[in-house]
Every structure is written in structure tokens, then in C-alpha cells.
């Protein structure tokens, strides 16, 4: 073995990478070669020296300073984290929001004056002022629904009267055999529609 080879083995030895066979070969060479022995000793000293390095600690308040520099939670990140923690809750609340949103837009779209009645010819309809009148001598059989307008009952309605975003004026001569309802809240409108749907389903 020449000294160059020995040097390679020395480094492998310091890496704890030598087989037993290679170790004994190296030992043999080192016994006979002063230069390599000195070199080996010197390299070992380098390691000892490095490992004698003093322990270094981060300065005080290091963690605080790091935290102070972190990007603040943006709205998007806030929701992302919320999503991770309560996926069902967030999904449910989003669903409700969307439904409410579409409900509102449906409701808000209908700013038109609308009248639902089985016998419009019995009624006085003033579309300029968005009013409907059930004249005193008239009897209307069936439900009347007025939307975005008012209804004045001077006659008789054999059914329900519903005003959505409007008022029902019942005159002294007026009479409603069914129910009289004024709806001006979105929720009530939704509830009203639900009721209607259920009633229609069960009839």
C-alpha cells in the first residue's frame, strides 16, 4: 500500500467506513510509515478541535421576534383554517348563505306588482297605483295574493288574502272567511312559500 492509498483509508476510517480487513491493512501501513502516522494524528485532532467548539445559543426574545415578522392571517387564510377545523360547519353555513342569497335575489327581483286571483273580473285593479279593490257588492271565491301592491277589501273574500310587500285594508263592509296575511320579511316569504308547497303537496 502506498501513502496515497493509506490516506484514503485514513479518511474512510475517520468516517467510520472501514471494513475490518481494511482496518488491519491500514494499521500495518501506519506502523511502518511515520509520515502517515503523523498525518492521521493531525486529521484526528481536527475533528477533536471542531467538536470542542462552544455551544452557541439563540439570543433572547428570538422566538418573539420571529412571530412578530410572520405574515398576518389574511381573510382567505382565516377561512382556510376554519375549513380545516370545522369542515361540516363551514360547508353548512356556506350552504345557508348561498340559499339565503339566492332566495333574496329571487325575492328582490320581483318588484313587480302581481295579483293572483281566480276571478279577476270581480276586482277593481288599479295598476298605476298598484292597488286592488274587492268592491263592496262582490264576493270572490278563492285566494287572492297581491305582491308589491295593496288590497282593499270592501266585499267578501271566501278564501285567504295574502299581501306580499303590501297592505291589506279591510273596510267595515269587508269580510274575509279565510286568513289574512301581510308578508314583508324574506323569511316569512320563504316560510309562506314552504307552507304553500306543503299544502299543495298534501292536496
Amino acid at each position, binding site marked *: 500500500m502506498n501513502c496515497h492509498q493509506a490516506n484514503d483509508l485514513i479518511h474512510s476510517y475517520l468516517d467510520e467506513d472501514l471494513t475490518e480487513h481494511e482496518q488491519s491493512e491500514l494499521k500495518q501501513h501506519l506502523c511502518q510509515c511515520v509520515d502517515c502516522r503523523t498525518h492521521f494524528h493531525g486529521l484526528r*485532532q481536527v475533528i477533536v478541535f471542531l467538536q*470542542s467548539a462552544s455551544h452557541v445559543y439563540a439570543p433572547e426574545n*428570538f422566538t418573539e421576534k420571529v412571530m412578530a415578522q*410572520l405574515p398576518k392571517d389574511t381573510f382567505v387564510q382565516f377561512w382556510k383554517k376554519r375549513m*380545516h377545523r370545522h369542515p361540516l360547519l363551514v360547508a353548512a353555513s356556506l350552504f345557508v348563505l348561498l340559499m339565503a342569497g339566492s332566495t333574496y335575489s329571487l325575492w328582490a327581483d320581483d318588484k313587480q306588482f302581481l295579483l293572483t286571483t281566480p276571478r279577476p273580473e270581480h276586482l277593481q285593479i288599479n295598476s298605476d297605483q298598484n292597488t286592488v279593490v274587492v268592491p263592496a257588492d262582490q264576493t270572490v271565491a278563492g285566494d287572492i295574493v297581491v305582491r308589491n301592491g295593496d288590497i282593499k277589501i270592501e266585499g267578501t273574500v271566501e278564501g285567504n288574502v295574502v299581501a306580499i310587500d303590501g297592505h291589506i285594508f279591510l273596510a267595515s263592509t269587508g269580510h274575509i272567511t279565510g286568513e289574512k296575511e301581510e308578508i314583508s320579511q324574506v323569511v316569512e316569504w320563504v316560510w309562506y312559500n314552504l307552507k304553500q308547497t306543503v299544502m299543495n303537496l298534501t292536496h
Partner: protein
Amino acid sequence: MVSIEEKLIKRIKKGDRDAFPELVELYKDKIYHVAYRMLGNAQEAEDIAQETFIRVYANLENYDPSYKFSTWIYRIATNLCIDHLRKRKQSVYSLDKPVEGAEGLDWHDRLADPDLGPEDRVLEGEFHGQVQEAIDSLSPKYRSIMILRYLEDLSLSEISDALKLPVTTIKTRIHRGREALKKKLNL
């Protein structure tokens, strides 16, 4: 067996605001130590160490849990240090050329660095800062490996993962690093 780091990272991702400071506490000395040994002064070390944790926080989504967390954070710290050293030494002459006959040293090392003071309060009791002086004499790519191997006790495969270099390259650089330091220290 789930590591502490994995548990902390899970908590961080869920939005637990106390989890990230715990992670910083766990690694702050190690990272500051590496930065200090790479850069040679306390102020820059603190800046780079802080930057390391900020990067970790910003990139948690990209962290690949099949690697050890320590590997990842050491990589970030080492790269930041090397970039910083490159910026620091920008000059008209190319100082990256290796010095003939002195493996592991380049012209940066041969010229005195005015930024580095001979003593630093951080190194009280360490042969008057001789270890730091010796480490400073190595070029960054050898310096980082010697620091990770002998000051942070990483294994060769851990260093290989951290620096994304093959183990054979790591071994070669350690050998050359040891030779260079032996010369520098007259051992």
C-alpha cells in the same frame, strides 16, 4: 411513531397559534448556531436565522413529510447563508477561484475579511474563537458541510438529504475540509 415535529406541523396547519412558536423554540439554537458558524457574526446570524423560520412558516404547505423536518430546515438555513455570503463578497475580482495547492480554500479565504472581528462575545471560552477562525478559512461549500457534520452531528446521509448532494460528494468535501483545516491549524 409520530415525531414531535409532525405533531406540531399538524397543529400549525389547523390554525393552532401556539404550535409554531413551539417549533421555533425547538430549533432556534440549532439554526442560530449554523448561521453563526457560517457567517461569523451574531447580527447577521440572527437575521438569517429569523428569515429561516419565516420561510418555514410560509412554505409549510410545500414541506414533504417523507423527509425529516430537521433536514428541510437545515437546507433552508444553509442555502440562505450561502446566498448571503455570495452577496457579501460581490466584488470586481472573481474571488471564487480556488487557490492552487490548498484544497478547500479560495481567494476569499486568503484575503482578510474586514467584516469579521477577531473575538465575539458569543464564543467566550472557545480557545478565543479559534474554531470560528478556522471555519471561516473554508469556502462556503466546505464550511457548511463541516459545520453540519462536526458541530451539528448530522450523519452523512442526513447532510446528503439536506444539501441535495450525493453521499460521495459529501464524503469528498469532508475529506478535503479536514485536510484544509489541518493545514490551517498546523496540526
